[in-house]
């Protein structure tokens, strides 16, 4: 049986600790499709519809209308087959809260329920009276020591928050953070193995062997460029705009394509990839205006930005619809005496029928050159 998709209480605001489930928009057991409205959630600001993130059948409801649920907590599952649907009390997870399908009120919403099957045993128990001491500004409360250790190890404290681990965090929480990071990476790899969610062509090119080329360039030129744009020109560019433009430009120089270049771009955050955007000829447009590609356009390049996450690489387990370019940040620099800053790691995964090796080499070389000296290539 395929692993069911967990429906979690989403974080809709920066400082949001819990959300009120206003209602389910789908009956238990009914079919849901990815992108269709699934729940209504009320935060301190507004009521918002939240879409399903997977196709399947709604199962195992663990929260009912009116329940206040901690952010990150699983409130239901989307299972692959109608026959797998269970009612509330959790066939899928032995430790799930008792609940019914129609009004699956967790008896006490402050109590931690199992959030991740991988790390239950490591999660501190948060009792009812232990009010999560979340800073109103949304800043994570962690000791300076843990912050430094997490930074050194390239780990993101937000993962602890997402899993409902009670604050404040200390050095002793580093092990759990490592485990959660590892689990998140495994989940991502599993998702990729199941087929990239970037379009109908996913998995179509499972046959040919995959090539892989990677490079490392200093992050300072791009960081500095983006900072100058922000400070001097007042232009707060998303780094992805720069990556997409350079990636397309490098691909264009290497392959001289006749049709427009379509780049699908996805940024990895603590909760997984943000929704993919498809850009048309991003290298020919201004950085501040990224032209969206028509819906359904076949991607020429899949661009994934891991720079905001702890990951340093992500290799697809099977074929891709297009060559996949991955950008990651190596934060190992800057610590030993401060002479080396961060690095950007760029990697290209491609199938033999998508690019020949010379072209792939030209793409990665061209991209590295652009990242190392952004001003020269933008003018």
């Amino acid at each position, binding site marked *: 049986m395929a692993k069911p998709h967990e429906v979690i209480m989403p974080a809709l605001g920066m400082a949001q600790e819990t959300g009120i489930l206003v209602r389910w928009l789908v009956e238990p057991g009914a079919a849901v499709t990815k992108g269709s409205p699934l729940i209504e959630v009320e935060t301190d600001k507004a009521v918002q519809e939240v879409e399903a993130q997977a196709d399947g059948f709604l199962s195992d409801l663990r929260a009912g209308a009116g329940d206040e649920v901690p952010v990150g907590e699983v409130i239901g599952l989307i299972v692959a087959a109608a026959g797998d649907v269970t009612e509330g009390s959790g066939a899928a997870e032995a430790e799930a809260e008792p609940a019914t399908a129609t009004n699956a009120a967790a008896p006490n919403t402050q109590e931690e329920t199992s959030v991740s099957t991988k790390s239950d045993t490591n999660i501190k128990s948060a009792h009812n009276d232990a009010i999560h001491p979340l800073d109103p500004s949304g800043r994570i409360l962690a*000791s300076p020591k843990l912050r*430094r250790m997490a930074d050194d190890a390239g780990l993101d404290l937000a993962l602890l928050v997402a899993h409902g681990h009670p604050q*404040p965090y200390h050095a002793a929480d580093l092990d759990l953070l490592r485990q959660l990071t590892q689990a998140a990476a495994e989940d991502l790899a599993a998702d990729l193995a199941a087929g990239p969610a970037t379009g109908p062509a996913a998995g179509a090119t499972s046959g040919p062997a995959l090539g892989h080329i990677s490079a490392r360039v200093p992050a300072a030129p791009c960081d500095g460029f983006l900072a100058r744009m922000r400070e001097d020109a007042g232009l707060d560019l998303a780094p992805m705009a720069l990556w997409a433009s350079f990636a397309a430009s490098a691909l264009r120089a290497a392959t001289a394509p006749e049709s427009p270049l379509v780049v699908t771009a996805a940024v990895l955050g603590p909760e997984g990839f943000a929704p993919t955007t498809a850009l048309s000829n991003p290298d020919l447009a201004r950085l501040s205006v990224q032209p969206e590609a028509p819906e359904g356009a076949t991607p020429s390049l899949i661009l994934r930005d891991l720079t905001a996450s702890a990951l340093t690489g992500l290799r697809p387990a099977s074929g891709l619809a297009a060559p996949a370019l991955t950008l990651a940040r190596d934060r190992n620099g800057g610590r030993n005496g401060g002479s080396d800053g961060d690095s950007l790691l760029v990697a290209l995964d491609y199938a033999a029928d998508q690019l020949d090796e010379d072209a792939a080499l030209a793409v990665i070389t061209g991209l590295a050159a652009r990242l190392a000296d952004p001003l020269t290539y933008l003018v």
Partner: protein
Amino acid sequence: MREITLSKAVNEAIAEEMRRDPCVFVIGEDVAEAGTPFKVLSGLVEEFGTDRIIDTPISEPGFMGLAVGSAMTGMRPIVDLMFGDFLFLVMDQLCNQAAKTHYMSGGKLSVPLVLRTNLGATRRSAAQHSQSLHALVAHIPGLKVAMPSSAYEAKGLMKTAIRDNNPVVIFEDKLMYQDKAGVPEEEYLIPFGVANIKREGTDITLIGTSSMVQVAEKAALILEAEGISAEVIDPRTIVPLDEATLLASVRKTSRAIVIDEGHQSYGITGEIASRLNEKAFYHLDAPVCRMGAMDVPVPFSPALEDLTVPTPEGVAALARRLVAGEMLHG
């Protein structure tokens, strides 16, 4: 090694230095025949005579000023201030004259003077004879401040103080005069600005001064029984302060409590805690905490007086919370 009382250790240090250097003399109230109310100086007048062990009238500003002048002109006075509380009477002579003369004379004059006095509550001496006022003088540039935590430190630090060419204030805890510790027969000096790691540990650093070193050591024993490993450090001098040793310890343990018998507010615990925050911030896993005496005049009532000073149980309780990662203040 032989064990002697803190009182005897101070007596020995002064006698040895007076034999070594004829410029050294003692001046104060009841220092000669009486040998001070705590009998610390007993026997000195018999050996050195009343020219070098000088009894004065009850006039602290007078004999303090006299001593500062004699130091400027080549003598090495040891001023005996019967209670630390009387520091308020000699502030001008000490802080405006002794502390600044070397600087203001462009180095032409120096003031090789030792002011030995005491601190410490719980002796039922009431509010005007129980204060721990070392923070007052530690605040003044130009004064060195030593705080011996045992007979061994008392002797070694006193000898260093007497040989120092600058004014030094030594605070002895008046409750520790009869406490014994191992003190070698042979001569030794303890340099200023070198902390002593009394006990090694990995979970939390307890920094104590004077008798609070004993409090910290007892707290460490309580914590040890609970599986918490506390490191205990005695700075020995608070001016100069051995920052490097304190920082190295806190970087290792990532937690610290600073314990001192001065009033907690605006005291030396705040100064030390602040330096640790500034310089070991990225190694801290918990806030650096202060434990000083309660901010009240020291009560005469024994039951109340005992509540005003840090205790081993209190230190252990706070350490336990810090190690557990508890949030102390919302």
